[in-house]
């Protein structure tokens, strides 16, 4: 710290300060710029560094270049309907802002907009990053921008600026937190700003299945669970983590049975060598399901299972849990089917999907054997050249199956599964939908596997030959568009982990999860949840306020310590209470006057006995060799003066 002022001896010019601000805010934006835009920025940077003010003609050329860069960057995704996607819209805004800033910066004159734009760019860049890294960067960014602002305002050395900026930052933190919690979020659900719902539908298993009309499925990278196998990971295409089983189609939602029949758990006798043993770390889902590989055999936790082989615990899972499980990797569950279930597993709404009913009629007429009908349905799917995509077109919600199968022909796993199950039921084959997770294998190292929310999947089980048999319905798609992203997340695989280490990493993941939930994915929904807590639970309100006050107090302590630490030299620290007292008594120190001037002024104008203090202070501070106990004398004199002032 001592050498910092020497390192930065002079105050930078306003333009240099602005440049610093821009460097800070544009760094993350570089990550989202497309190549043509990068090229444009590089040219603009070159011109800015070159330093001379370009002619109007050249500025116009650069502007044109910027336009071309924007066009090329957004080529393909750019259409007026495309603009309703928020991300694209913001991207366009950033590009335009960058061009404007570059052009203005070239003229080397600072105007209001040039000063304002770093804040705008920072705000816009927040739309693109939802990682802890960016969170930390933003916290730092705010501090740096504050520092630059202070630097521009204050005409002093960097040390003082750093100190003031830090103090301001500490003071503003509680406000920032309040702002963060209560600032109105954009509710995409209601498309308030005319943007299509993009955030609402995160992928993930939630116990029911909706067939949505609009909506883009946003693959979420949130980790659901980590699985460690004893031995090698079974082939990826056989890994189906079973979640909930859905029987009832209510309009466009598949839901589980409301009342579970007391059917027995399917018989399970598998030879030992056919069993797979594995360990799962399941992160909080706020649901009751445990996810076990198909076909689940047993697990160590106190989970209840049933006829459907769903494994559920009593309470919602709100903290990470660890369980061991055993499964038989297979695709058919031999069991009986009660008349009640048979009835439900064949139910469909005859008023809907007339085209499908017509198609099934043909199949039914051609054969009586369920297996052959199943093949015929699969063939029907294949003949439609269906496309697997996360961005399906709008459906006719009344006849979702017809619409998907014969009109739009685009959908993701839920659409495939729903349509297939419906058709099977029409053909008299009992069917049910199973939702869960199906990892794509990108996140595995040796025997370690990470399952993320984007791995959520739905498939169909049909009851044929007195067994529930799995049908992978998405494999019926002919075209796969932007389907399963292969992410190269390198997760550390720690073989033979120690127990303590297990716990530690579990907690680290847990902290990460909490940050994810409460900061990065803090949305209008979380806000609503918070408000409902506020309304229903007075204790929660007290707890919230208590924690907030604690936070403020901690900050204040930090601020105080920071101030104390800055309090050097000693003689000034000793004097500071006296200054406070004098200021309170109506004799404040003018910031630009020296202490000597201040003390002498008080002596002259107000007859305060401060001469000795003044002399002692200056002796300590400026004399070559101060007397050993001058500081003690000074303290004594200050005490005297304080008593005098108070009396």
């Amino acid at each position: 710290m001592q050498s910092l002022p020497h390192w930065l001896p002079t105050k930078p010019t306003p333009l240099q300060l602005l440049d610093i601000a821009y460097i800070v805010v544009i760094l993350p934006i570089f990550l989202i710029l497309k190549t043509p835009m990068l090229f444009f920025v590089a040219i603009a940077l070159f011109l800015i560094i070159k330093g001379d003010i370009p002619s109007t003609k050249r500025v116009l050329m650069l502007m044109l270049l910027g336009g071309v860069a924007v066009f090329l960057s957004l080529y393909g995704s750019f259409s007026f309907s495309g603009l309703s996607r928020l991300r694209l819209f913001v991207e366009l805004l950033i590009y335009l802002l960058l061009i404007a800033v570059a052009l203005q910066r070239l003229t080397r004159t600072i105007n209001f907009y040039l000063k304002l734009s770093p804040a705008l760019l920072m705000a816009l860049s927040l739309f693109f990053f939802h990682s802890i890294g960016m969170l930390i960067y933003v916290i730092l960014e705010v501090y740096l921008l504050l520092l630059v602002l202070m630097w521009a305002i204050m005409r002093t050395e960097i040390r003082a600026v750093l100190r003031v900026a830090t103090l301001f930052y500490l003071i503003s933190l509680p406000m920032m937190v309040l702002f963060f919690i209560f600032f109105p979020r954009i509710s995409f659900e209601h498309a308030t700003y005319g943007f299509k719902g993009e955030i609402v539908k995160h992928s993930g298993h939630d116990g029911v299945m909706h067939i949505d009309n609009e909506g883009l499925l946003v693959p979420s990278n949130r980790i659901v669970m980590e699985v460690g196998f004893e031995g090698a990971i079974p082939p990826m295409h056989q890994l189906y983590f079973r979640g909930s089983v859905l029987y009832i189609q209510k309009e466009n939602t598949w839901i589980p049975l409301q009342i579970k029949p007391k059917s027995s758990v399917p018989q399970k006798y598998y030879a030992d060598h056919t069993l797979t043993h594995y360990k799962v770390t399941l992160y909080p889902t706020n649901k009751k399901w445990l996810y076990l590989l198909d076909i689940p055999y047993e697990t160590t936790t106190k989970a209840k299972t049933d006829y459907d082989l769903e494994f559920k615990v009593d309470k919602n899972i709100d903290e990470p849990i660890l369980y061991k499980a055993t499964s038989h990797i297979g695709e058919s569950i031999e069991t009986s089917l009660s008349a009640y279930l048979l009835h439900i597993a064949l139910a469909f709404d005859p008023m809907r999907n007339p085209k499908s009913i017509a198609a099934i009629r043909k199949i039914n007429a051609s054969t009586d054997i369920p297996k052959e009908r199943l093949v015929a349905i699969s063939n029907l799917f294949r003949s439609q050249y269906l496309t697997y995509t996360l961005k399906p077109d709008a459906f006719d919600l009344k006849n979702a199956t017809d619409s998907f199968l014969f009109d739009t022909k685009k959908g993701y796993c839920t659409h495939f599964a729903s349509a297939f199950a419906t058709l099977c039921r029409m053909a008299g084959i009992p069917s049910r939908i199973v939702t869960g997770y199906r990892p794509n294998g990108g996140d595995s190292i040796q025997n370690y596997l990470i399952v993320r929310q984007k791995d959520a999947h739905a498939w169909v089980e049909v009851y044929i030959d007195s067994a529930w048999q799995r049908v992978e319905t998405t494999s019926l798609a002919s075209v796969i568009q932007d389907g399963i992203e292969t992410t190269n997340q390198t997760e550390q695989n720690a073989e033979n982990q120690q127990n303590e280490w297990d716990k530690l990493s579990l907690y680290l993941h847990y902290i990460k999860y909490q940050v994810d939930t409460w900061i990065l994915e803090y949305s209008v929904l979380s806000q609503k949840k918070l408000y409902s807590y506020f309304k229903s639970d007075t204790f929660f309100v007290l707890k919230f306020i208590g924690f907030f006050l604690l936070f403020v107090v901690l900050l204040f302590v930090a601020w105080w310590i920071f101030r104390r630490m800055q309090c050097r030299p000693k003689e000034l620290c000793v004097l500071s209470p006296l200054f406070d007292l004098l200021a309170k008594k109506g004799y404040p120190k003018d910031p630009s006057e020296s202490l000597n001037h201040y003390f002498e002024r008080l002596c002259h104008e107000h007859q305060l006995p401060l001469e000795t203090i003044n002399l002692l202070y200056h002796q300590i501070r400026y004399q070559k060799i101060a007397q050993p106990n001058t500081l003690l004398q000074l303290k004594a004199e200050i005490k005297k003066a304080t008593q005098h002032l108070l009396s």
Partner: protein
Amino acid sequence: MKLMNTLDTKFTPLITAIASQLYGKEESITLTLAAFFAKGHLLVEDIPGVGKTTLARALASVLGLEFGRIQFTSDLLPSDILGVNYFDQKKSDFVFKKGPIFTQFLLADEINRSMPKTQSALLEAMEEGRISIDREVYTLQEPFFVMGTQNPYEEVGTFRLPDSQLDRFICALRIGYPEYEAERAILSRQKPKSIDISPPFTTQELLAMQSEVTQVHLSDALLDYLQSIIALSRNGAYFVHGLSTRGALALASMSRAWAYLHSRNYAIPDDVTTVAPYVCLHRLKFTEGKTTIERLRNVISENTHPDA
């Protein structure tokens, strides 16, 4: 208990004596004295008739110094200042005839009227403390103090001193018009009083005091403050160019002298703040507007923080 900014009692008779000649200009007088004790030379920038000569004469007489005066004109030659070798026919040899520079207190009036060649002859002598003519080196007397004056408003027929030459003056001051009361006193008196004290110090004592000034302590805290002023002059926000290292040294010496005059063996920020505008006056130029003592003082006090 005495205040930090009270003048040492041994100097008060001096100041009072000079002030009896030059009414209401105590600060200018003290500053001139400080420049003398700092072993520097003083530049007075002012119009004629505000008391430059009076100040010089009075100061020389109270300090008991030999007084010399050169009126600079456009035809003044270096030899008119330094002296000349002439051929003495009786001795049949060249004899050096000392010029008016061989004195202890030299008033160089309107130096900007003479040619650069003559100016630099004087300024080099000031810097070196000796002169050389025809390979002979002549040491000037000690103490040697030059008070140069220049008229800032007249442009015709003057040769502005270049900044590098101005740097050789430790500080500059403008005496300025007297205050209303002081002027009334000047107007109402019948004839100028003569100085009524005998010089209180011998030349040896003056030289001893000059060396004592160099012993005045500048603490780290004070040097921090001093350097903050130097940095301010150089950061380009206010001035065309910053203080040179010679200028920085001048600031340090003047601060020492000022502290010494106020009977301290250590300098405090107020010493620096008081002398800084005078040290900077002829060295710095504001990027916009006139350079005045008041503006310099304001800029320095607003942008630097003593005792921080």
